């Protein structure tokens, strides 16, 4: 165990020494890795926030029934009785015209303009949830409700919430594709950096093997080197993505408030940050492993 730890420490020291030996080249590599990773990381963080918005907005289809402006308490009772008797209705909520005006005042900030009106222009409304949410069942219920007396306008308004859910789903796939594509690019960048390192250290590797170095001994410092580059690249990617989101957050927040009032963009948790940086380090390790293994295989199978 002591010897194993000594090997690890020595390999890590050698990796750090190599980074220090060519700081400019190392910085360029790390920046390239960081920028390549920043895009999927940024998109991922955006999606996390979109998920959160989607969670606040009920994606369950709802049917809004607006009554005629002259509807009185008796009409409302009659309409409610009809809803209770409809087997397709799961539940409903009544929103009085006064309540609707108050919500509109709060949500839009048009209080002054609304105050100038002589009377409340909004109708009483019912928000109805169906037992079955298939498009056919919803359409049938919408037709039923529109036939009821005093029903002025019936709106099936789940479309945009569905679009957001669909956008989230597509976004996840885009992030996955980008992560795979740019992760492969990262593997190539690190693999190439390691290949150059190997060319520079070829003599040391060959002499080392002649005097008893195992493949693991040869490989180890390069694995640390690749992992360190991935780690630093991951940190840069996180910093770039968080900075970009922070910069855009004011503009985005204004837009989001319309759909999800009170929503605050999510800060990136330390767990998420750790996972992303660790994944970048792992990719660096894998790139280094592939590159060194290829070289060692060439050494072993070279014509004698």
């Amino acid at each position: 165990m002591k010897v194993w730890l000594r090997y690890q420490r020595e390999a890590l020291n050698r990796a750090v020494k190599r980074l220090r030996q060519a700081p400019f080249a190392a910085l360029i590599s790390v920046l390239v890795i960081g920028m390549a990773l920043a895009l999927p990381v940024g998109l991922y963080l955006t999606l996390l926030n979109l998920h959160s918005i989607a969670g606040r907005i009920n994606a369950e289809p709802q049917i809004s029934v607006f009554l005629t402006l002259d509807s009185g308490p008796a009409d409302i009772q009659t309409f409610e009785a009809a809803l209770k008797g409809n087997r397709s209705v799961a539940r409903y909520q009544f929103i009085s015209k006064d309540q609707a005006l108050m919500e509109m005042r709060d949500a839009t900030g048009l209080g002054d303009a609304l105050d100038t009106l002589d009377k409340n222009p909004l109708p009483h409304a019912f928000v109805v949830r169906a037992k079955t949410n298939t498009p056919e069942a919803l359409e049938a219920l919408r037709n039923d409700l529109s036939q009821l007396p005093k029903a002025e306008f019936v709106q099936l308004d789940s479309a945009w919430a569905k679009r957001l859910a669909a956008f989230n789903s597509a976004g996840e796939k885009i992030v996955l594709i980008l992560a795979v594509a740019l992760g492969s690019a990262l593997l190539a960048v690190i693999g190439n950096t390691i290949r150059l390192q190997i060319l520079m250290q070829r003599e040391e590797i060959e002499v080392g093997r002649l005097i008893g170095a195992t493949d693991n001994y040869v490989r180890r410092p390069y694995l640390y080197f690749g992992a360190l580059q991935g780690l630093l690249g991951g940190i840069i990617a996180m910093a770039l993505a968080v900075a970009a989101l922070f910069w855009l957050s004011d503009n985005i927040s204004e837009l989001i408030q319309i759909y999800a009032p009170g929503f605050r963009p999510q800060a990136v948790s330390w767990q998420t940050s750790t996972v992303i940086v660790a994944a970048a380090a792992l990719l660096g390790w894998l790139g280094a492993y592939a590159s060194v293994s290829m070289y060692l295989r060439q050494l072993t199978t070279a014509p004698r």
Partner: protein
Amino acid sequence: MISFSNVSKRYSNGFEALKSISLEVQEGELVVLTGHSGAGKSTLLKLAAGIEYATSGNVVVAGQSLSRMQPQALAMLRRNIGLIFQDHKLLFDRNVFDNAALPLSISGYSPADVGRRVRAALDKVGLLDREKANPIQLSGGEQQRLCIARAIVNRPSILIADEPSGNLDAEYAITIMDMFKSFNQVGVTVLISTHDEALAARYNPRRLHLDKGQLVQETAV
């Protein structure tokens, strides 16, 4: 300790460097391979060190057949063999101490052990006062001595040296050969190649003469 049974070696370009060689080197023996350039001395030593593989026949070192050996096992075997190359194979990006310390780092020795053993090895070859120098600052003879220090620092049971005195003047060549003789006197098996028959004869070792890849003459002690 080292055994060749009907060993032949043909390179990929078709050149047959060794033709059906059979020989035995006993533990603690000093054996000198002689022969002209191209006789097959270096190839034979490379086969003994597992640097090259035989095209046919079997090479056994310290009881292990090299032809069937896995890379990991070969690496472990090499830690028990001190190799001295004609071109030294020193690393010029590190100083004398670090060059000599390389086999110990590979074997996982502690820094304290590395320091003690490296200084002992450098002292043995007369380079203790040059430990901080870069190998490029050393003369050819000193570089050869550093190569010997690196070979003995792991206290191997076998030393294999390819023309260790090849590029040195006569006086230095004798100094180097004296070192091998002294290692042999403490029980190390030594296998050396040289084209200098007179130098080999001076130490009265068992001599194997190679010519065109064949073992043509053996001179017993």
